[in-house]
């Protein structure tokens, strides 16, 4: 059993984008704030802080989740993927290129979260229907695009990923 006292900072180790990173967090520190303020990963944005807008979405242990509704200490030892991990060598991946091609962002505030949701979604659903994409996107708010370019980008990216990597296994 772990017991972490309030009002003091504790060591938290996460595996972020494939690298073990250690930082300090109070027991009440949100994962979003830990990523941004402690690990200096500012790609993950903070919007509503009650799980509605989707801007803070990251992948924890392979699943797209809200980082504003979990604590850093809850995630001790977890594998966390953030938008910074999508283009580790500075080159956009297929999904990011599709967003660029389709003008699927304007101000970009919501984009990091949507990219992380779509990354997990396309692993689970490599050949999605438009309705499935829209259902997944219902967990995100975007005030610039009207969503259509985002839907088009995700469908296009799915096609490109399937062409490169046709045999996709269902996750257990």
């Amino acid at each position: 059993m772990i017991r972490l006292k309030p009002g003091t900072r504790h060591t938290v180790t996460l595996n972020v984008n494939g690298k073990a990173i250690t930082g300090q967090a109070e027991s009440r520190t949100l994962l979003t704030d830990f990523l941004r303020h402690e690990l200096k990963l500012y790609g993950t944005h903070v919007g509503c802080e009650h799980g509605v807008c989707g801007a803070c979405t990251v992948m924890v242990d392979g699943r797209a989740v809200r980082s504003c509704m979990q604590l850093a200490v809850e995630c001790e030892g977890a594998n966390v993927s953030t938008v910074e991990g999508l283009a580790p060598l500075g080159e956009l991946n297929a999904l990011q290129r599709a967003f660029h091609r389709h003008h699927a962002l304007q101000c970009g505030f919501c984009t990091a979260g949507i990219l992380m949701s779509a990354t997990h979604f396309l692993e689970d659903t490599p050949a999605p229907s438009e309705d499935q994409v829209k259902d997944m996107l219902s967990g995100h708010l975007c005030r610039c695009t009207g969503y259509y370019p985002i839907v088009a980008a995700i469908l296009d990216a799915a096609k490109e990923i399937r062409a490169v990597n046709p045999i996709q296994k269902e996750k257990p």
Partner: protein
Amino acid sequence: MKPVAFEYCRPDTIAEAVELLAEFGPDATLLAGGMSLGAMLNMRLVRPTALIDIKRVGGLDRFTVNGEIRTGATLRQAAALSNEALMRAVPLLALALPNVGHFQTRNRGTLGGSVSHADPSSEIPLALVTAGGSLELQSKRGTRRVPAREFFLDILTTVREPDELVTALVWPKARAGAGYAFAEIAQRHGDFAIVACAAEAVLKADGSLASLAFGLGGVESRPLVTETAAFLGKRADADLAAGIADAAAAAVTPMSDFKATADYRRALVETLGRQVLAEAFGQAKVR
């Protein structure tokens, strides 16, 4: 919009979890997926002395489908939804789950957390109540089983004692030939339901109604199952669906809030109720 300072406790076993609950009593808050609690902590609507994170309690996310259908408290909604055997065994849960939040919240939200949280508009409590399921609770004092229809008292209020942990939900097996239906009206898909209706109908060989559970969520301060005994034995058709929905609408005392007035909720019980009942009758196989 940041939580108050609290002690974070992460037990590995049920024994440790109930020990912590006994220690902190009402000053402790249990954390499972945190998809409702996280927001309430951030808004400081909840200010616990201790937060007891049960996500890593061994075995609490297991479920069984053969024999008794039991879903562990920390079984994630997405994990339940993707298990075909479980979804076949509990049709009301299968129909309800796609309406619960979004892909991103179902990935972390749990079945037990949603039921324990007891939001009156939540889908999983409605499914459990309509199905006639029950909950298993454990404390240092022992374990007990509570029928879901007796579990909910009011908005966010249940019969769970401060030292008790909900360990599992128990679901009755799908009844052979029964028809199931679920639908809700929300401002947007994934939002809290303004009204949600769930139904399980069994018909006799002559097409008359043998048994019916008609559940309503979002209407009163807790999920409820309406009185339908007067309609048994009657021919299960659109007229009967309308009669049952209208009777339910007349009997309920709906909430009024910023999303909908009591009158609007009552009207939804009528129209959505008719549709859901007719759908359940249509799905039921005449035996």
